């Protein structure tokens, strides 16, 4: 009887995993099948041309810019915020409030972030439609993910590590930097990877704040177009699924490389394990 149940449970796990794999393969397969024909050197490294046949190099650069800047801003803020909530704050009203705020941020549709960013960063702070406005908007979007995943990672660091370190007369900060955060790296990393996904996948929040200028950005105050915004525009107006899919392939490769890099860095940080 128990055995039957066990097999059943195991079956459920396998089926779920297989479903996930099927979904993955279908989607990625779809994107590759639809998009591979457009792939060539000049498509990737060429400049954009509004009359067609151009490449997507400016969008690739813009995408990388946006990811880097958003992560550089959001990761420390998010990790530190999680550290505050988990390691410093007395668990109480304040913490619950911050946590609630953070979680409520996750469900706001990106178009609202975009409109907010357009009013706040673009107009009020006068950053203009620019990569920096978009990155700041994206920072708000991904903060909840970074904060929450980091918090969870911190929770799993055994209390005995903290005790062991503090008992040696180290400060909380030292304990945090040398013992706690390194042990939490895998969790933080998964948050960062998810955030990269969120940044890459975003369109509405970006085109309202960075615009859609299809040229190589001259700096972080330039308007620019990310790959996803590009694929959004070509789907929306031209309905060009092949082009959107080709952009999808490029994005998948970018994410793949970034994830590998992130994992590599985390292994480096964690080498004693």
């Amino acid at each position, binding site marked *: 009887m128990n055995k039957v149940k066990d097999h059943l449970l195991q079956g459920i796990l396998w089926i779920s995993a297989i479903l996930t794999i099927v979904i993955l393969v279908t989607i990625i397969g779809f994107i590759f099948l639809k998009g591979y024909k457009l792939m060539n050197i000049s498509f990737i490294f060429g400049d954009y041309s509004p009359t067609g046949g151009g490449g997507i190099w400016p969008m690739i650069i813009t995408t990388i810019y946006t990811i880097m800047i958003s992560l550089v801003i959001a990761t420390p803020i998010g990790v530190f915020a999680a550290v505050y909530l988990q390691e410093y704050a007395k668990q109480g009203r304040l913490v619950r409030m911050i946590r609630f705020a953070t979680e409520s941020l996750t469900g706001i549709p990106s178009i609202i972030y975009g409109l907010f960013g357009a009013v706040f960063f*673009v*107009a009020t702070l006068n950053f203009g*439609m620019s990569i920096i406005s978009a990155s700041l908007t994206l920072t708000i979007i991904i903060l909840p993910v970074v904060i929450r995943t980091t918090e969870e990672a911190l929770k799993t660091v055994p209390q005995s590590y903290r005790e062991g370190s503090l008992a040696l007369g180290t400060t909380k900060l030292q304990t945090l930097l040398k013992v706690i955060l390194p042990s939490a790296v895998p969790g933080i990393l998964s948050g960062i990877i998810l955030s990269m996904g969120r940044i890459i996948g975003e369109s509405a929040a970006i085109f*309202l704040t960075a615009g*859609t200028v299809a*040229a190589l950005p001259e700096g972080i105050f330039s308007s620019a177009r990310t790959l996803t915004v590009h694929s959004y*525009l070509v789907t*929306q*107006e*031209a309905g060009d699924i092949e082009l959107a899919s080709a952009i999808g392939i490029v994005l998948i490769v970018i994410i793949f490389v970034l994830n590998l890099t992130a994992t590599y860095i985390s292994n480096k940080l964690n080498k004693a394990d």
Partner: protein
Amino acid sequence: DNEDSSNARYTLSISGSTSVGPLAEKLAEKYEQQSKINIEINQVGSSAGITNSIKGVSEIGMSSRDLTEEEIASGLKETIIAYDGIVVVTHPSNKVGDLTIEEVKDIFTGKVKNWKQLGGDDMEIVVVSREDGSGSRDAFQEIVGYSSSELIKSALIASGNGNIKNTVATNKHAVGFISFEYIDDTVQPVKINGVEATTKNVLNQSYRLSRPFLFVYKMENLSKEGQSFIDFILSPEGQKIVSDAGIIPLK
């Protein structure tokens, strides 16, 4: 190609409609070659573009819808730079290839629910419309003669020409409307009152489904570079680019 652009070059910022955007990009590409300015085009939607031009975030806004009274009151001026033809499209397998304006109205208001009633196969009609506020939709409804509240409730709403096209292309029951420039062989254009949807027929006014593309700006924000770009668009050279792009020139 902006690589050789130096700081000395003037940057003209334009933002707005995603339907006007592609055309504006093509015009800008040509104009940048002969003038000494940079043109930044941001396709963020008509309303955002209009707001940007009112707030001075952009010098010129692009709109595919008419300005509201409020917007005009805030001092915006408009210039029509081209016309956009609108065509009713069905799935390529659909046998119905010609409709009267009345029939189109009956379809979109739900009076006619089956293609059989229009001489097609016995199957349900799936209506695909643009979203509320869309310039194409406003123009289409006005010319065909029904209001938003008359639109059949079960109509699918798609944002943008591309999404309508893809929706119709993947559903043999469907009927929708898109701009001329997006027509390709994945969908089938329908004649209206026997008249084919062509630029020529729009210009000779035998085909009635069209609406204007606008540039909007506040006079006090418009630089001489901005003015000369508008002048370029209205010139024969500019209008040739318009018609090459599959869009209807002014004359």
